[in-house]
């Protein structure tokens, strides 16, 4: 049984989507009997994050939020893990598997975490894209257009929580991506032409750093 930490900010539409669609990740963590620490909404701030990382020493961390090349943010866009000089707390990722579902962190922050002996880092080096429906903001989990983006990206933390290596988890995400592409093209090729390009983009910009054979154990 490992300690798993996940941030779930929800202060705008995008973070709310990411956090609501993380339900499956949380369900897997429970079923896999891991001790789960959540930082939800306004709790997803730097002080709480640093405290949980220090006091509970999770072996696997999932961060939802906005980001750039140096930082991932939590509630109200406060940087919570960052290699920027003003925060410089990437050392907290030492010995952990870290998955960041945010824009840009796969570049400088990812490399900084690896330098700080992060076990393995998975992130995105450019803007993480999401197709969604304007009229679904109050019901993100009913948004069929957004669903494939989260069902694919969720595969990574879900597989890691089930004991797969980082490499296996990424492969499972790619298998899910192919299945979603086939499903979309079969069911609605017109809609597919607007969704698939961005699913493929997210795969193109994904980075996996550090030990690809790492597991949560």
């Amino acid at each position, binding site marked *: 049984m490992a300690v798993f930490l996940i941030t779930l900010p929800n202060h705008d539409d995008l973070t709310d989507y990411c956090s609501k669609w993380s339900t499956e990740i949380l369900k897997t963590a429970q079923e896999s009997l891991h001790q789960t620490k959540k930082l939800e909404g306004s709790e997803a701030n730097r002080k709480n994050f640093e405290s949980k990382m220090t006091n509970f020493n999770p072996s696997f961390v999932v961060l939802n939020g*906005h980001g750039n090349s140096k930082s991932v943010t939590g509630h109200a866009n406060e940087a919570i893990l960052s290699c920027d000089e003003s925060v410089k707390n990437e050392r907290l990722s030492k010995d952990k598997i870290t998955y960041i579902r945010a824009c840009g962190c796969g570049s400088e922050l990812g490399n900084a975490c690896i330098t700080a002996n992060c076990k393995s880092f998975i992130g995105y080096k450019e803007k993480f894209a999401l197709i969604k429906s304007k009229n679904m903001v109050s019901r993100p989990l009913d948004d069929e257009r957004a669903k494939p983006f989260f069902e694919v990206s969720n595969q990574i933390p879900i597989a890691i929580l089930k004991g797969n290596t980082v490499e296996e988890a990424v492969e499972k995400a790619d298998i899910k991506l192919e299945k979603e592409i086939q499903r979309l093209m079969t069911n609605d090729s*017109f809609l597919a032409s*607007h969704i698939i390009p961005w699913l493929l983009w997210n795969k193109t910009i994904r980075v996996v750093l550090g030990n690809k054979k790492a597991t949560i154990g």
Partner: protein
Amino acid sequence: MASEEEKKLVLARLATMPLDMELSLGDTGSFDREQLIHEVENETKVGDLVITVYMNYLRSFKQRVR
């Protein structure tokens, strides 16, 4: 930089995007059909990204059906 032909192709594709659909690109913002058309026509960073992504998709689609 995208060619005029690529730009026209992508604009034609964007014209078919449902009105209630939008693309979110993190804190850069969310863009509906009209906004994306504006970004592409004005050759902004977002517009260039949209062209790149759609053209990559069309090329990979060609590979898939071969």
